[in-house]
Structures are given as C-alpha cells and as structure tokens.
C-alpha cells in the first residue's frame, strides 16, 4: 500500500533563497557582484586583468576565480587584485557554498566590486545563481557569431554581453551586428560591449558601465540597510 503526497515545490527554491541572502549581504556592504560566464578561453581572466589595471588606485575590486584544476588564474590575477582560487575538482560550474567559502576567506573592508569568474562552460553555470547582481557573458570572436541562439540560457539569464578579442576581427568572418541581433532575440535587455582585453580597447566603456551599475545599487537604500 502506498500513498501519494503532493509537494509542488521548486527544487531550486532553497538555493535561490541562499543566493538572494548572499546578494543582500554584498549589497549591504556596497559591493556590486558580477558573475562572469563564457566558454573556456574566451578571455575572462584577461578581461578581469584589464579591468583591474584600468581601476588601479581608484576602484577596489576582488576576484573569486573558479576552475576545475590548478590555481593558474589566481596566479595571473594576484599582481592586480585580491584573489582566491576556487577549485571545483571536476565540477563544470561554481555553486554558492564554494563561492561563500572563498568569500569568507577573501572578505575585506572597502571593496566596491566582487567578480566571480565561473568555470569555462556556456551551459551549466547559467542555471546557478551565485548571489551576483550582474551576470556577464563573454563571447570571443573566434567562437563564431552564432552562439547566442545556440546557448540561449547563458544569454537569456545575463545582463551584460562582452564581445571580446575584437583585435582579431579583421581576420575572421564574424559579424558583430549578427551577434547583437541574435543575442537580443534571446534577451532584449542585454547590454552589449565590444572589447579587446589584450589591447585594452573598449575596456574603459565597460568599466564606466560597471561603475554606473554600482552607483544605482547604492541608490537603493533598502538594500544597504540590511546588516552585513
């Protein structure tokens, strides 16, 4: 004999609530958190390096960088920003508990931005809220201009899209207009930026946008009243 018990509950509700609590905790400290997702090799680390260099002495940021193995990204970023490597040991995306452990270790006063560099993967990271205020998807021009429609969840759940490695555009059959159009069919509100993290082109515009987003966060006093 069996009985059926109706539950009707979102399996991810607990995770979402935990992410929301973390986001409020960061908001209360005046920190804007940005979760960077992309396929491997799109240039997330180089972009973060370029942002950190552009902000040197003016804006304070810290990075939690995720990888399946090695601390290579943390080593690359260490000369520019406080950074902790999150090593997932095989998992293809970051989850909140690992991020929070890294944050507990990295936390310091006076930070204005926290960047979470996700594991290179355009699929699974799209389903995990890490408490970020902004999700930023990086697409490099060598990946082809048909990606937004092929990885809709990554683009649908993002707020910002950075088309990176624009210094290579003269050598590739890549249409930035096609990407922007394709991306906006998936997410009309996606803010688009063109950068070359290598040469620094476009990084200033992206930095200005991020600073403006943080000012908007600070203008929401309700978020800042929560105890950290």
């Amino acid at each position, binding site marked *: *004999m*069996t*009985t*059926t*018990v*109706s*539950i*009707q*509950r*979102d*399996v*991810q509700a*607990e*995770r979402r609530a935990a992410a929301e609590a973390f986001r409020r905790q960061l908001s209360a400290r005046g920190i804007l958190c940005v979760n960077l997702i992309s396929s491997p090799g799109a240039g997330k680390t180089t972009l973060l390096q370029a942002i950190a260099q552009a902000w040197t002495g003016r804006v304070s940021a810290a990075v939690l960088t995720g990888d399946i193995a090695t601390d290579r990204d943390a080593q690359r970023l260490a000369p520019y920003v406080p950074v902790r490597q999150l090593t997932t040991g095989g*998992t*293809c*995306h970051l*989850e909140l508990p690992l991020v929070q452990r890294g944050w507990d270790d990295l936390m310091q006063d006076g930070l204005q931005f926290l960047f979470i560099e996700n594991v290179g993967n355009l*699929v*699974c990271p*799209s*389903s*995990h809220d890490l408490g970020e205020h902004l999700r930023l998807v990086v697409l490099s021009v060598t990946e082809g201009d048909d990606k937004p*429609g092929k990885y*809709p*969840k990554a683009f*649908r759940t993002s707020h910002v899209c950075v088309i990176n490695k624009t210094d290579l555009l003269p050598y590739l059959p890549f249409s930035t207009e096609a990407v922007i159009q394709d991306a*906006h*069919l*998936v*997410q*009309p509100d996606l803010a688009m930026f063109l950068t070359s993290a290598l040469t620094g082109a476009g990084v200033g515009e992206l930095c200005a946008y991020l600073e403006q987003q943080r000012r908007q966060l600070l203008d929401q006093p309700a978020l800042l009243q929560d105890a950290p």
Partner: protein
Amino acid sequence: MHERSLVAGLLDQIVREIAPRDPRRVQAVTLEIGEFAGVEPLLLASAFEELAPTVLSPEVRLDWRTVPLRACCESCVQEFSVSQFRFVCPACGASRVRVVAGEELLLVSVELTATEPRITKAIA
C-alpha cells in the same frame, strides 16, 4: 553536467523535510522539468538511478514530465509557446516578454509506502 548536484539537493530535501523518519519508504518521486530549466532529463534520470536507491527505497522510481516553454507578451498580453528560444511575441513582434512556464524544476509529489504497524510487545 550539473544534474548530479541537482539530484543530491533533491534527495537531501526529501530526506530532511518529507520523510525524515524513514526515507526508505519513498517508492517514487515525480518531477516536472521545464524545457528551459537548464536540466537534461535523461542525465537527471541517470543521476537519480545512481544516487536515489542509496537513500530512498532501493526500488525507488523517478517519474518526470517536461513542461514546454511559454511566455506572456508584456505589450499585448498574448500568451504563446516560445519556439527556438526566440523570446519574441508572435502576435505583435514585441521582445519584452515574461516567461510563465518552462523554467521550473518542480518536485510534484512523492509516493510513500504505508508505515509498518508497530510491533507491540505481547503481554504475557
């Protein structure tokens, strides 16, 4: 492949909140998986087959159905089925649309075996 992690979270919730006394009573679990939940049902099913019998009934069964992606146009309030992940209203062409179904991973119900009658000590 994050389905293993989702299944681990699901099992944890079932054990903690639904059948804390005897999770082995759980004979079946029913899920609704949205088309845009970022979950591959077959991978989820294989992770369930691997993990669930270790904490729920050894014969536990997973039933699931997929939920199509549907959205509602913010301009003309037309509800429509989203095809090819193009979030554009087919009626008026507006691109500001709100997803109303198809993003969920819902635990619909669990099936429990009746508790076994308590064996009381025979009074001599």
